[in-house]
């Protein structure tokens, strides 16, 4: 089991959606990077992700990793946010047969999984149909 620091240091991204942006390229990076892979710029500025986007592709996970056993089957998709950033995340609160590419989604703060009986509870973003 990892120490909680591994979880804790990702909180700015998972709770607050902190990203950064390369102004010359007009590209947003999530998770934030130290260097722009397109132009080499190191002076990236802080920004926050858009909250809404469209579903690009998705799958229904039926054979899950052990920490997700109690959630399966569940949907995971790639969502193109309105600021152009593409994110991987679960799509919830939607019947599988109503799910389709192009559908509008928005982020919500949810529980992801917990680490055993005495371990930490892990949170982050999931996607729900836009409301």
């Amino acid at each position, binding site marked *: 089991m990892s120490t909680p620091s591994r979880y804790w240091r990702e909180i700015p991204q998972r709770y607050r959606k902190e990203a950064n942006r390369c102004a010359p390229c007009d590209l947003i990076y999530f*998770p934030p990077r130290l260097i722009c892979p397109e132009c080499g710029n190191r002076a990236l500025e802080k920004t926050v992700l858009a909250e809404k986007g469209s579903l690009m*592709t*998705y*799958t*229904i*996970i*039926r054979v899950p990793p*052990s920490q997700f056993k109690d959630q399966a089957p569940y949907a995971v998709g790639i969502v193109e946010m309105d600021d152009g950033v*593409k994110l991987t995340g679960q799509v919830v609160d939607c019947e599988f047969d109503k799910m389709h590419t192009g559908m509008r989604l928005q982020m919500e703060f949810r529980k992801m999984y917990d680490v055993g009986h005495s371990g930490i509870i892990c949170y*982050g973003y999931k996607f729900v149909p836009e409301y």
Partner: protein
Amino acid sequence: MRDVAVIGVGITKWGEIWKQSLRDIYVETALLALEDAGVDRVDSMYVGSMSPGLFVGQEHIGALLSDYLGQKHIPAVRVESACASGGVAVRMGFMEVASGISDAVLVSGIEKMTDVGGDEATYALGSAADQEYEGYHGLTFPGLYALIARAHMEKYGTTREQLAMVAVKNHKNGANNPNAQFPFEVTVEQVINSVKVADPLNILDCSPITDGAAAVVLVPAEKAREMKKPVIKIVGSGFATDSFALAQRKEITWLEATYLAGQRAYGMAGKKPEDLDLLEVHDCFTIAEICVTEALGVVEKGRGGAAVEAGETALEGRIPVNTSGGLKSKGHPVGATGVAQVMEVVKQLRGEAGKRQVKDPRVGMTQNMGGSGASTVCHIFEREA
């Protein structure tokens, strides 16, 4: 740079090998390659292996395996690039012989995956994806390729049946491979009706968990010419990487690292896709073979599924792909896969492929891919006239 040839190849029966340990499987396989090469001592060793640490709790296997192979004191190191570990090990050996540093290099790949249970194996394989931003959301390896599959189906009209036909074709080839883990045929209906794993992929779209190893011996081509066997040269080697997480690629259905590695290998070899007589590619999932054939330019972009349906990539087709049975039927002991691909192409070019022999091939290519496509290594082989 010197010309490099493959003079020895070895493989053992793949599957769930309960009775043998990592080191025993390795030694048995490596000895077959040394015997085929007619050498008993090599200058150095590369071992492609994705995660002996997670699968058997053993790191530092370069030294372990050189010791047990009776090659103590030689340089020996493990090479890791997820599922491309074996192919990258071949590239390391190629560069070492080409540079003149060594005259005989043993390149092998191995994975002992069944010493852990299914959950732990899934975890180990998942470590090739982005743990913080893919794995954290419950995305699995079949899930990653399922995301590619759905996008490909919606963009190009690739059908569920066409995905299944990749498995059907590869199992048909694998049925004639005595070393394959699953040497039997399957039907489109069986694939589509098999257990769902990650929609739209079912279990028979996925390569299995396998124990196994493969080994090849590389020498300067001038040395190979002294032997009685056909001289099979490595004429091209290309290696490329891409955005690590699938979501961050410019196009989800396009394997840019495979395209670039292919272009680099074609460039070094002075060959074009039309010059190839056969390919061994990384069909870890049925959709992967479709995308790979497109990225390597053997079929038009978007036509990968249609090409399988038309039989273009069948054993008797325009360009046979995965004559060995591929990862799907032969098995996928992760680190061994890239080396076994080389072995299949060498066997084909020598004319030793038995019932699955392609008619008189001269040029063959291998493509070995890591993760959801963030690493790819390609090699082109040619039989000397």
